[in-house]
């Protein structure tokens, strides 16, 4: 938006202007410097306690410097760093499982959630079973999954899919129920049939909640994947963390944890961007400080 000039049409205040404006304000405010202090305190304390003074139980934990040098070391002591191919196979195996689970869970969960919200009969016949199974912790399924599905790969994917499915289906249903009843009624007035209302009103209307659900489902997928890999499974970050504990390669545990954190964060950020891209109408509405 040109400086000072009055914005005649709403189009000019694009997301980019809002972003640059906020970023320059952020730089001038004290927040970035405090953030730096926060990080310095955390990593400094960890470093002092684990590596320098080796206080109490911290002695047995590797310090940040050890972890970092191992992680960036071309030929690492325990064979696991950014330069070794095995590290990337573990990362890729975990990512692949989450991806498959996410796709299946979205493919099943979104339609199921839409019908749960849309038709009362369907909901009253299928939701009770869904609700009775939901409290059972996903990881209590591990032994049963191993029994039900032979091999190592399928049980892990089944568990991760189950976790994501619950989150996706539930949030999609909430999305449909959150739609103001005036919208389907207005569409009915304009002569739209039941199916046209479903396509033009229910799906776009529920989209914001669906994407909240997808973000949660990615988080939950990583939550269950790591545990499932620790207990069974050949490759993957969870497996890496657990075996490096058994083989007393402690720095690799921390590397595994950080990697899971980073990859998990990136995958949920991707889902958020996809959501913003698909829901242009919300982004521009929020940029102007809320709709009505």
């Amino acid at each position, binding site marked *: 938006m040109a400086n000072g000039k009055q914005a005649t*049409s*709403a*189009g000019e205040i694009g997301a980019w202007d809002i972003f640059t404006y906020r970023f320059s304000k952020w730089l001038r405010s004290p927040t970035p410097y405090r953030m730096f202090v926060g990080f310095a305190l955390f990593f400094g304390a960890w470093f002092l306690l684990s590596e320098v003074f080796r206080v109490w139980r911290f002695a047995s934990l590797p310090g940040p410097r050890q972890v970092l040098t191992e992680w960036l070391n071309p030929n690492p002591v325990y064979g696991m760093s950014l330069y070794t191919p095995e590290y990337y196979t573990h990362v890729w195996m975990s990512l692949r499982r989450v991806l498959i689970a996410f796709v299946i869970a979205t493919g099943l969960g979104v339609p199921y959630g839409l019908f749960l919200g849309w038709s009362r009969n369907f909901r009253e016949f299928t939701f009770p079973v869904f609700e009775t199974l939901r409290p059972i912790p996903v990881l209590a399924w591990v032994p049963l999954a191993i029994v039900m599905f032979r091999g190592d790969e399928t049980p892990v994917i089944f568990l991760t899919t189950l976790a994501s499915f619950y989150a996706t289906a539930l949030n999609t249903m909430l999305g449909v129920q959150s739609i*103001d009843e*005036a*919208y389907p*009624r*207005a*569409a*009915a*007035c*304009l*002569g*739209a*049939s039941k199916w*046209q209302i479903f396509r*033009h*009103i229910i799906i*776009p*209307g529920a*989209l914001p909640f669906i994407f909240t659900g997808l973000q949660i489902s990615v988080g939950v997928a990583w939550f269950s994947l790591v545990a499932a890999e620790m207990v069974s499974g050949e490759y993957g970050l969870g497996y890496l963390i657990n075996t490096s504990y058994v083989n007393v390669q402690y720095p690799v545990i921390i590397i595994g944890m950080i990697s899971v954190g980073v990859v998990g964060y990136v995958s949920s950020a991707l889902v958020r961007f996809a959501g913003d891209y698909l*829901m*242009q*109408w*919300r982004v*521009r*509405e929020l940029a*102007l400080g809320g*709709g*009505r």
Partner: protein
Amino acid sequence: MNAPSSMRSAPAGQHASKGAIRIQNVDKMYYAREGAVQAVSDCSLDIRAGEICMIVGPSGCGKTTLLNAIAGFHDITGGTISLDGELLCGPEKPKAEPGPDRVVVFQNGALFPWKTNLENVAFGPVMQGKMTWAQAREKARGMMADAGLVGVEHNYPGEVSSGMRRRVEIVRALMNDPKVLLLDEPFRALDSLTKSVMHEALLEIYYKNKVTIFFITHDLEEAIFLGHRVAIMTTRPCKPKKILEVDIPHPRNYSVLTSPRFRSLMEETVNAVHEEAVKAFEAGEKEM
């Protein structure tokens, strides 16, 4: 300046042949958690074709229930409603079919936020299969220009002012050339000045399209300024208590607000509504 009250206020009936609603002894019983609630009891009202009929009454008295019954969102538990002689809902068919002949404009607005204003307006005919998206967009652009909505076609509803959103929604309704426009307190959320500008915009659109308007409101001034007739409803369960002929000639503009005829009509309405409002006020009647 005050025309004799016997003469019909505006030639409303002559050239508007469609949109006469006949409501006969309608009852509506709700089964809420705390037991049955009688929202409408033995309500009879005839709305002439092409007329602006204002429905006025205290909050929570069942006016919206009546509108929902005509639009086909709720069923009725007694009596009949018909449009131009054709039965909408009655004993054997308690719930009317929503359709483009009776389009509703909602209190808090129901423009689809995920479609641009133009797509919103073009939505009706495309859904009914009467037009393709391209044809509908073309006609929609024309109608929006008529209503003074130029330059906002490609914005999302959330990006334009509430006054403009209201006008887009009215144009969206008129796109299907309905017989009746059902308005449920469309200007309640607007502040009084935007409201006065919207009144003039609505009248302009009405003079061009001559459609019957069933208009629910709490605002007595708005009722008398816009309406050919004002039906004053009792508190719950609602039925017409008094019907007032507003014999101020159309076309009207805001200077009418301070004319002597307007003031006497206003006083007549205030007295008629006063006891109903005080009853609701004392009981702390919350919007049903």
